[in-house]
């Protein structure tokens, strides 16, 4: 009886086994990368029915985010403005700016018919996620942390993955994103632009004991009595420039920022 199987087939099982290992590894890597929001969501940039440019309005003109998204500090939703808001500037009889522009055609029409402009949703939280804008904005988290530099986008793009892991990263280490409340809608803010003296003076003005601030800078046992000592201490710890960690640590401690990590914080 001859050999039914050629000689090379003796190694086939081993080759197969090795191949399976490689394929499995490849699939896992593929899934881990391509099937995550980081890949599927970031970069999503749908065409909107009205070619509204955030770059012009929020960037060049410097409109505050809250001029249009007026309830963002009060409500869970960041509202999309009504036509009346657009017409404050563009409306006939109001600002009348470029009121004949073809780009505004749909807005004018919507005003006549009363039918809403069907804006395309860019950032979509699943139905079982109850995200609340006001809870973040009122506690020192800026728009830019989740939406990116909207003021530089002609068309709004999905900038951050907004996955659960991404949310939790910040909830566990909020220092990286906290900033003084007056800069929350300033999308160009950098911690380095702050004046250290003003920042610490602001904290002292809120009747926070200097000793506590010092402890937050350089750990337990550190003492300070006045602004000068604090400034010296901060410079020694963080260097000449104000850093994000420095600002974030102080805010987290003195505003008692405790980002919830419970299920019920987002799922109800």
């Amino acid at each position, binding site marked *: 009886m001859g050999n039914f199987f050629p000689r090379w087939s003796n190694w086939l099982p081993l080759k197969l086994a090795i191949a399976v290992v490689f394929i499995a590894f490849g699939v896992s890597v593929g899934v881990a990368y391509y099937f995550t929001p980081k890949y*599927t969501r970031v970069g999503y940039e749908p065409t909107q029915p009205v070619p509204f440019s955030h770059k012009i309005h929020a960037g060049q003109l410097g409109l505050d985010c809250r001029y249009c998204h007026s309830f963002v500090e009060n*409500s869970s939703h960041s509202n999309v403005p009504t036509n009346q808001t657009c017409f404050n500037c563009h409306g006939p009889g109001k600002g009348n700016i470029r009121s004949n522009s073809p780009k505004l055609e749909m807005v004018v029409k919507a005003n006549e018919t009363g039918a809403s402009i*069907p*804006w395309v*949703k860019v950032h979509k939280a699943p139905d079982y996620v109850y995200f609340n804008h*006001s809870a973040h904005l009122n506690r*020192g988290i800026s728009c830019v942390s989740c939406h990116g530099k909207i003021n530089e986008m002609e068309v709004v793009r999905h900038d951050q993955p907004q996955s659960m892991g991404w949310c939790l990263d910040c909830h566990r280490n909020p220092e990286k994103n906290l900033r003084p409340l007056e800069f929350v809608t300033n999308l160009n803010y950098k911690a380095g632009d702050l004046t250290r003296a003003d920042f610490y003076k602001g904290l002292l003005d809120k009747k926070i004991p200097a000793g506590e601030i010092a402890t937050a800078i350089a750990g337990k046992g550190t003492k300070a009595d006045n602004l000068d000592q604090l400034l010296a201490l901060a410079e020694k710890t963080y260097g000449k420039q104000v850093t994000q960690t420095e600002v974030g640590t102080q805010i987290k401690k003195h505003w008692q920022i405790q980002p919830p990590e419970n*299920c*019920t914080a987002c799922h*109800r």
Partner: protein
Amino acid sequence: MKRIWKHPEEPQNAKRYWRSVAELDRREDFLKNLGREFPEGDTLTEDERENSRREFLKIMGASVGMMGLASCRRPLTNILPYTQHVEWMVPGKSLLYATTMPRSGGATPLVVTTHEGRPTHVTGNPLHPLGGGIDTFAQASVLDLYDPERSQKPLGAGKELSWAKANDLIAAAVAEAKKSSGASLGVVAGATTSPTYLRLLGELKAAYPQVKLFQYEAVGGEGQTAANKEVLGAGVKPFLKLGSAMRILSLDCDFLGVDPVAGEPISAFTKHRAKEAKTADMNRLYVLENRYTLTGGMADHRKPIAASLIPVAAALIASELGDASAKALADTAPAGLKEWIAPAVRDLIDNKGKAVVLAGSRHGAEVHALVASINNALGAFGSTIELLQSTQAPEMGGFAELQAAVSGGQIKTLVSLTPSSLYYDAPDAEAFSKLVAEKGVKLIHVGTQKNRTARHAALHIPAAHYLESWGDACAADGTYSIVQPMIAPLYDGASKIEVLLALLGRKKLGPAEAAAAPAAAGAAPAEDAAYTAVRDTFASVAGGLDEKKWNFTLRDGFLKGSAFAKASAAPNVAAVAAIVAKAKPAAAPTDDSLEVVLTVDSSVYDGRYINNAWLQEAPDPVTKLTWDNAAWIGSVTFRRLGLKEGQHVKITVGGAEIEIPAIEAPGHVSNSITLPLGYGQKGVGVVGGGRGVNAYVLRKQPGTFVLSGAKVEVLPTIAELAITQDQNTMEGRAVYREGTLDTFNKDVTFAQKTGMDGHIPENISFYKGQVGVKSKENPDGFDYETKHQWGMVIDLSKCIGCTACIVACQSENNIPVVGKDQVRKGRVMQWIRMDRYFAVPKWGKNEVAQESTYAVDNPTPEQLENAEMVHQPLACQQCEAAPCETVCPVNATVHTDDGLNAMAYNRCIGTRYCANNCPYTARRFNWFDYNKRNPLIDTKVLGMTVGNLYAGPLGEKKEDESLRLQRNPNVTVRMRGVIEKCTYCVQRIESAKILQKQVQRDSKNFRVPTDTVKTACQQSCPADAIVFGDLADKKSAVVKAKASPRDYQLLKYIGTRPRTSYLARLRNPNKNMPGAENIAVWSNNQF
């Protein structure tokens, strides 16, 4: 070593609480499912399993194929902003409006939660002088608004008509009425307190002087009205001051349940039921009734007597108090009644000025006349009963006058504005509808449902819901409230005020009018005739149309200081004798001649709420029956007839007969049958259509609700009833604690020493978890410094068992309705379970031998007739060491650091381990997609008719658009295959915490203001029995409640450390009463 845990043996000689006679008898069908969270037959059958496996494979196959495609497509969704800004509207935030639910007994003041213009939830108005909790009917009324089967189009003899045609028909009737100066027109109104409605009726009378006005309510209290008019005077309304009454005797008056008495809210009564210190005063309630009612359950002394004997009992009390006119009637009293009544009356006399006697509103004039005389003798008028002078209503006839007028033949058009359904619930409705047809009377019916009257009327006008129309109403004390619309009419319905305006020729009905009124916020346009009419009334009530006053009234929900003035005249007791003399003494029912008592139903009232699925599925507080009505028969009679649970009986009385399933009702007097009304309506929709049996057919005379001389025939068939009393059992473990005032005074902490509680070792829990307060010794404990710690206390002394909390929870938390078939399988989804236990006082200590088994020591039927009834609401206990959490394989149920047992629905994979491990059986499983697939309808699949849920992908999978509008957007709508349960309304907690963040911004004051978070059940509770709050906030009410000596935890010995605890119930028996020594014999005799 594996530790095997045994629940401590229930002492055989102690008082036991049981839910059903099946449990008491240890019947096989009960034992079979005992201890199974998902009883046999509750899980899928073999067939279902096979089908679902195939379905699974099919779907899996398809989805694997589609996966590649699906994952790279992002569903396109739109954001549709308002084009014009709506005043006060903040997208994502709810808006609250005050309004009022107009009802026959008076206004129920409400606060309505609206989301983007959709009313989703109602609560009582806490600002209103009579505000607070509300009952189930008001709580569930928001669902009626969205009922997809509400009447939507005008009907003419059952066929759809256009609004134009309907308006023409009305115009023709008006023209005819003008010609005959109203003689051809009759108007049947319901009982109402609306000043505008009454004013317009008056104007109708002025415009057409010959018009005939009638008042008809299916279950109105004709006897009460007649007696009050004679004795108290015309237009005088008694107002009960429950909070001042320390001794109350109720003659078949379910004032805590479905027979409310005009007066202070129930919380004024329960305020005097709770006691934290020996010194506090406690009220006492005596009840005489034929069946168990909620009031009977709250009684300190209760005696079941036949409803036919209520007049005799009233006479007996009156003659005890020296009313000679009652002597003759009192002498007919059966043996034993006097022995019970005499000491009770003595107690009332001892508390003169603080005592009151109440009578059921449907009893005859003689009972109410006698009660007026009794209350006069007890000094109740002016102290516990305030007499108020209401504004005069136009003279209206009753049903007898209506019948006479129709047969007289003068009336050509009859307009029915009453919420009752004349062709269904009128006395001898069949004959009446024939009479109307014979005489050629055109019936114009106005109502929200396509009920029998609507379908047979010459013209049916769909009525607007009270949440979509302008109106007004007065509360029991006369406080004036405005009914303001929350939403434009969904189906162009017309309110009753608008119909009256149409009859006066001032308005056309239907959508044309609605289109002319764009929904401008704040003020409705001036041309809205109903709005103008209400404002005119307001102007006369408030003394001038002050815009500021009007706005304040709308905001607060009532006009301050608009209560009725006190009546000047004293009650005319001399009139009593004449009324009593007319009364015919009724004989007590016997074995051959039973009595039938017609009562309102706790789910459908008189039938008007028949199509409300929440109410249908909320178990009856006493029988725990859902989706049906049944004849309640006392144990003695039930067993004498040899009946089985649910067996059909044929009841014949006065020439009419019905066939109805019978259920055994402990605490029910023998030879008496209670029949809840309102069921057996056809064509009203899938929710209520064809359910139950119509008991109205037995009633031939208006105003009679107790029928004597009934015969009962046992039929062989057994009905399939959905009774929840044996579902989700606590396996008979001692979870209910109560004691008498004496026990309490002997040792205020008695409840904490009952059972094993006095001697359980520390830290016995075998469920690991974060427990206790964080401290040096307990570093893993809960943080009370920088976090909230939520907790709840339920006061069993106050809880009346009304199930308003269940419906409130359903409305707030998007809990689906599952339908009768699923309820039978034990799949009811309500997060709160109202456990109702019976207990037999005589059957306890020293009565039975130690070794006896359940089967031997069963109480006799006579003892069952005197059973006590208690209620215990039970939802998730939020255990700190939660047994459910340790068994969840996917961490879908975990603890939050503010002490909640959280439930992440999107993570749950449906193993149901948690439900199996929950000692309180507080978890519910979504067996089907109840929200998407209508469980109430049948679907045709391959020629076969199957329940929609079982039709798989072939079933109808569409949610009713209108029902979706009711959903609370802040709570996930759960899907098939996940567990759900109470989470202390976590959405309310989280939004309160976030609101605090909005306020505090960069400061560190994180704690929400004391007692500002309220759960839905707590808000709805009319008895104020539920306290919820932050345990870490020393000022909060819940901390005070937990400090009560009556505080105890359910199954404390298993160490789950629940955050919900209960306050033991107290009863206040009168030592001189017969049987007082047996009342609330303490559940543990070992102490």
